[in-house]
């Protein structure tokens, strides 16, 4: 069993999302950075859909009551087990009574902790992704505990590791398609929008990222229509909103751009004040 000694800033259990219920207004949810999450599951030889722990900016403190094998990917945290540094992006072994801490990341914002067989928390509507009003718990908190799959020592030390593409964290370029309302924007807007430097605002969260830099632009509201993670909305007052994994399923602001799937993962690793710009595919 793993016991949570401290929940960290925003820790939650996530898988690839809750598909099939969007027409009932149920958000997709799921891991913010699917690229890093897949890597963690891969290291553990899990299927890509196993649930992981998503860790945001300041990590939790976890007490392993049994030995386990885990992998941590994503933002460059400096994890320690019983105060001894362990590697990111590789399979690591936690001894019985090991205390895992994360510290703060050097770059990136979110990390993923995978364990063999995934986190077996409650599955609601085909997904374990925690979301307020759908799952009983909306986040991981102090006092929570998670079952570990029986762990077998196979062939001595765990050694698997992967090399991470650093561009996933450092690149400021966010790849986008034109959105449903792109063609309705004035031609001059269309040209400028895809090269303007934008800054991540502090209000950004799992539902949406708010970006600064589009104040001179604006778009009329639309008749409420479908939106999805990665939809870039422009409000009448020039606010730029990039919807993320916990976003609502429909919305009434102009959908000017649509991030590619990998661009959503990339953006989810950006912190407040970091800069990005859009580039049309």
């Amino acid at each position, binding site marked *: 069993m793993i016991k949570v000694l401290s929940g960290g800033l925003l820790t939650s259990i996530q898988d690839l999302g809750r598909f099939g219920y969007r027409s009932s*207004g149920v958000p997709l949810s799921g891991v913010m950075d699917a690229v890093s999450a897949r890597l963690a599951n891969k290291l553990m030889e899990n299927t890509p859909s196993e649930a992981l722990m998503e860790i945001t900016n300041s990590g939790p403190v976890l007490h392993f009551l049994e030995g386990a094998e885990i992998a941590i990917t994503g933002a460059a945290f400096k994890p320690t087990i019983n105060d001894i540094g362990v590697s990111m992006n590789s399979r690591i072994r936690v001894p019985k009574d090991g205390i895992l801490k994360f510290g703060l990341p050097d770059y990136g914002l979110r990390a993923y902790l995978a364990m063999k067989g995934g986190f077996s928390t409650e599955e609601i509507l085909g997904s374990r992704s925690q979301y307020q009003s759908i799952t009983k718990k909306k986040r991981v908190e102090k006092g929570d505990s998670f079952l570990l799959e029986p762990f077998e020592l196979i062939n001595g030390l765990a050694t698997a590791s992967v090399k991470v593409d650093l561009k996933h964290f450092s690149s400021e370029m966010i790849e986008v398609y034109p959105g449903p309302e792109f063609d309705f924007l004035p031609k001059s807007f269309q040209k400028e929008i895809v090269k303007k430097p934008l800054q991540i605002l502090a209000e950004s969260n799992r539902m949406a990222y708010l970006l600064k830099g589009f104040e001179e632009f604006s778009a009329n509201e639309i008749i409420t229509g*479908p939106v999805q993670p990665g939809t870039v909305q422009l409000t009448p007052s020039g606010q730029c909103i990039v919807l993320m994994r916990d976003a609502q399923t429909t919305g009434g602001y102009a959908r000017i751009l649509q991030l590619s799937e990998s661009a959503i993962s990339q953006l989810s690793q950006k912190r407040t004040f970091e800069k990005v710009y859009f580039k049309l595919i």
Partner: protein
Amino acid sequence: MNKFPTYQRFGDSAVLIRWENEISSTINSEVIEMEAYVKDCFSEEIIETVPTYNSLAIYLKYANNVTSFLEKVRSIKEIDSNVKPVTRYIVYIPVCYEQGFAMDLEALATRHELTPSEVVTLHTEASYRVYFNGFLPGFPYLGGLPIKLHTARKKTPRLHIEAGSVAIGGGQTGIYTIPSPGGWNIIGRCPLRFFSSEITPVSMLQAGDEVKFIPITSEAFKKIENEVASNTYIIRKELRYD
């Protein structure tokens, strides 16, 4: 040739079909028919669909080729009448408009120079079309609110609105299906459950259904609330023919 609907890519793995830019039950019916049709014809390629007033998002399985899917839906000339028709209902929803459940009823009535009971009569006489679900799990976008009841949203949204609250926001009326913050004017409360992950379908109302509100007393509210809790309440529904 009619230029609607239009078909376009919506990101890596989705397609958006759009009809005329207006809110009308005729257009919404076309959206819902198209939804049933593409789900029937291309079920292998589709993860899920989301209909709204005048558009339909089709989310495709990941490895799917959006360009070739666009070709396929573009070539749909007319909806094959052999496709199973969409079954829709008139759903009767009990609402208690009494004080305690209707925080904004009096103020709203005063604004329109009506009495609270006139507001209730207007609200319950009309019937409302469910255009689609969105905003919150199970939240129905209802059309058909009498113009006399159109009321601007509150300047300061409430931080907590009880599940089941029946409200008016601008030209729309709706039901808060789960507890939520919100800025609509609360005029009553319904004891039914509009969303549950344990029931199929998860949302009580489906796009294309029609809603009628039935006024009930606070005693009836408590009785129905208990019946809902013990799963003995039967929602009154009639098949819709149109």
